[in-house]
């Protein structure tokens, strides 16, 4: 560790941020809003712009903000490593699983029309589920990548 190249800045910015109370208070107010907005984007994607990808990124950004301001150990308590790993796989499996269910119900892979008696209703169920899968995987992928980077730093 001592052999590491000396950085221009003695400490990474994350350390300094832990002492800025204005940022901490504001972020405490903001984080629930960000999470709520992410959920809105997730489930309102059928009607307006948005969907799983964007919602996942926004949801993850709330956790990243928390990790930047309150430090990695606090953030790790909120989202332990096993949660991110399981979440990462769950989203993708949910997506692929919806396709397999469609196959068992007598349609093609990823054909949602067979999921319910009414094709349009089936499509709705299918899209909601796979969007949720997309959101979960994207969210936890972003959190994983950021946490791994930040862990490496500390």
């Amino acid at each position: 560790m001592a052999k590491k190249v000396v950085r221009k800045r003695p400490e990474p910015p994350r350390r300094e941020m832990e002492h800025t109370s204005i940022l901490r208070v504001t972020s405490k107010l903001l984080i629930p809003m960000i999470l709520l907005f992410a959920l809105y984007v997730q489930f309102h994607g059928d009607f307006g712009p948005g969907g799983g990808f964007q919602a996942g990124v926004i949801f993850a950004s709330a956790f990243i903000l928390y990790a930047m301001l309150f430090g990695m150990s606090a953030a790790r308590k909120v989202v332990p490593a096993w949660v991110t790993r399981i979440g990462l796989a769950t989203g993708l499996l949910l997506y692929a699983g919806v396709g397999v269910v469609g196959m068992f119900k007598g349609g093609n892979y990823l054909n949602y029309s067979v999921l319910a008696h009414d094709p349009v209703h089936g499509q709705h169920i299918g899209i909601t589920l796979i969007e949720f899968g997309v959101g979960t995987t994207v969210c936890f992928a972003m959190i994983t990548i950021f946490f791994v980077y930040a862990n490496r730093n500390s």
Partner: protein
Amino acid sequence: MAVAAIALVRLRNLFAVVMFSGIYSLLAAVLYVVMDAVDVAFTEAAVGAGIATVLMLGTLALTTEKSEQSHKLSLSSLAVVTITGAALMYATLDMPRYGETTAPIHHHVAPRYIEKSKKEVGMPNIVTSVLASYRGFDTLGEVTVIFTAAVGVMALIGRRREKKKSRKKSKKAAA
């Protein structure tokens, strides 16, 4: 956008470079909004301007903040860049004008999506129904790419944590 791009190339302070790339992404998002591609703009703003900037900052914290000065002008790379740029510019001359109704892209599958997606999928947002239903397999591939990226990062530089975790697990198993 051009100013941001030039500043990106000229600057040597990598922190400023990251900030400018974020600004560039945000401007691109604005451009998409102007072109009525709201979904794309949303993604660009969230991923390009938000997450990418944060990840780049994380990378900067791992390395140094200044890039090495190099004043050597490489003629071969200049030639490659110029030729590629000229070829791309030349290709844009053949593209249909923006918003032209006779463009091939408006005559392939797009009319079908616009006319029938309401009846077939029942979503007011056609972008969602195309992404999630008609092109469901593509989207599955995209999600797999993101999953693979995260797994790759974990495997490559998340090693230390991995060891700690497995040690903890073995302790639990022993207890």
